[in-house]
């Protein structure tokens, strides 16, 4: 494959130099002419790195431009290679691969959790204000403030009375629907997230995926997606629903008394369920390859999508829990049993095989799934 090295297009960072007159000019623009094109020059834009002097003189204030979005950096972060980008641009580019967009040097795995902000005080000032309005999007347990540029775009569209507007966040096009106050990816309408307009001073988790309380232990323990807005609102309802009961079992044996929410007829259901044979008759615990047994935490099952604000986690919410894969049966809320459950001892299949019972459960996203037990 031919290496695409044809000439230097422009400075990766066009350093916008604010002179004393207040005008701005672009430094270091260089276009390769037809005869100047050669494979020896690097195709990727070269840029000034952190700490390099600006060409225009001592009196100027250098504001780097992001080589990805071609705009002034919003929450600029410095990569280990010292190249500077918007935090969200780096986040978007990291879906491609964890490499610098300019020099292709590898970015550490934990960089998105602990980014090197060029101006941490800017983050704090962005989250404070004197009564003016800001825009927020919902995480799993709190609200995140949009970055200033997106806030400006949203506010502009909202004040003009538009029904919706498009915005580019972390390399993905999103639609902000002002009628339903939700945002979703333009090419993926199913994944939605609530948005709101509120004053700047309200309690919030952070700005555009950057936590305000930069607690190192917090950052490591929970993965924050937040910035790319990929959470599913349906998944948010899962936490608020009634506690799901789990039946602890011995392998191939009878379950112990289940923990069920109090409701009419719960005693009868409890008796019926307690007599079900759950698990493999042969006494083996058939957890699928690469799958972990879900621990029971206080009557609730810790599901794989419990990670706070994980962008892709809601894809796991539709997975059926099968008795051949897990030794503990998850009883979803609002159980409706198809047909009467007979005790296993009454009409157990010969050879002690477990009886198959269809259980229809309503999942948090409103879909009904039929699980064979």
């Amino acid at each position: 494959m031919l290496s695409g090295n044809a000439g230097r297009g422009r400075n990766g960072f066009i350093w916008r130099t604010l002179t004393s007159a207040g005008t701005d000019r672009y430094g270091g623009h260089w276009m390769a002419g037809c005869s100047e094109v050669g494979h020896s020059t690097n195709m990727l834009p070269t840029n000034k790195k952190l700490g390099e002097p600006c060409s225009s003189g001592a009196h100027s204030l250098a504001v780097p431009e992001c080589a990805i979005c071609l705009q002034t950096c919003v929450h600029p972060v410095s990569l280990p290679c010292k190249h500077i980008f918007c935090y969200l641009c780096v986040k978007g580019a990291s879906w491609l691969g964890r490499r610098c967009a300019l020099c292709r040097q590898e970015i550490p795995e934990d960089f998105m959790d602990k980014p090197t902000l060029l101006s941490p005080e800017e983050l704090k000032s962005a989250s404070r204000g004197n009564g003016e309005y800001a825009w927020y999007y919902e995480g799993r347990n709190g609200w995140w403030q949009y970055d200033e540029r997106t806030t400006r775009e949203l506010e502009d569209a909202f004040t003009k009375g538009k029904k919706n507007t498009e915005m580019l966040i972390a390399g993905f096009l999103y639609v902000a629907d002002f009628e339903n106050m939700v945002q979703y990816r333009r090419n993926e309408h199913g994944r939605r997230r609530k948005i709101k307009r509120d004053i700047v001073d309200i309690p919030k988790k952070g700005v555009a995926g950057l936590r305000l309380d930069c607690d190192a232990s917090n950052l490591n323990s929970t993965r924050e997606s937040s910035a790319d807005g990929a959470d599913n609102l349906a998944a948010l309802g899962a936490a608020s629903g009634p506690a799901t009961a789990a039946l602890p079992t011995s392998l191939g044996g009878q379950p112990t008394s289940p923990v069920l929410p109090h409701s009419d007829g719960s005693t009868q259901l409890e008796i019926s369920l307690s007599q079900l044979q759950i698990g493999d008759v042969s006494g083996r615990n058939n957890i699928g390859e690469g799958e972990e047994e879900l621990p029971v935490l206080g009557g609730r099952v810790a599901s794989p999508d419990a990670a706070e604000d994980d962008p892709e986690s809601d894809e796991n919410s539709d997975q059926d829990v099968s008795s051949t894969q897990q030794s503990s049966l998850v009883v979803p809320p609002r159980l409706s049993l198809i047909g009467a459950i007979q005790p296993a001892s009454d009409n157990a299949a010969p050879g002690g095989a477990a009886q198959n019972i269809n259980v229809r459960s309503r999942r948090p996203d409103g879909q009904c799934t039929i699980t064979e037990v």
Partner: protein
Amino acid sequence: MLETQHLLAEPVPAIRAMPDENNACYFHVCIAGPQDSPFEGGSFKLELFLPEEYPMAAPKVRFMTKIYHPNVEKLGRICLDILKDKWSPALQIHTVLLSIQALLSAPNPDDPSANDAAQWLYSHRYLDWIQEHNVVQDRRN
């Protein structure tokens, strides 16, 4: 779009890229055959389409004009690493077009899309042509 404005305001020499009237993500491109290359004097039309994921994904570029080149398939698809696995979000439309222009100047016969064109490139006549025009081949990947 910021990049389109840059393209129109500061056009790249020997390359013309105009956005489509109906679709801002579709560009009509014209590249002049580079000097001291077999394509000198020619004018090649290309189409360039920016996918929804751009700049996180590479633009789709294709030759509309038939061209006899070892790295261009019969349908006009271009074998160029920055359009595939070596794409970077820091690259832009004009840098991609400059790369394609450079590909016309220095074909890469070691990674051919069109085998017959690659054989022609290695043929005696073409090597004579290179010596006459004192063009240095760069066969690095």
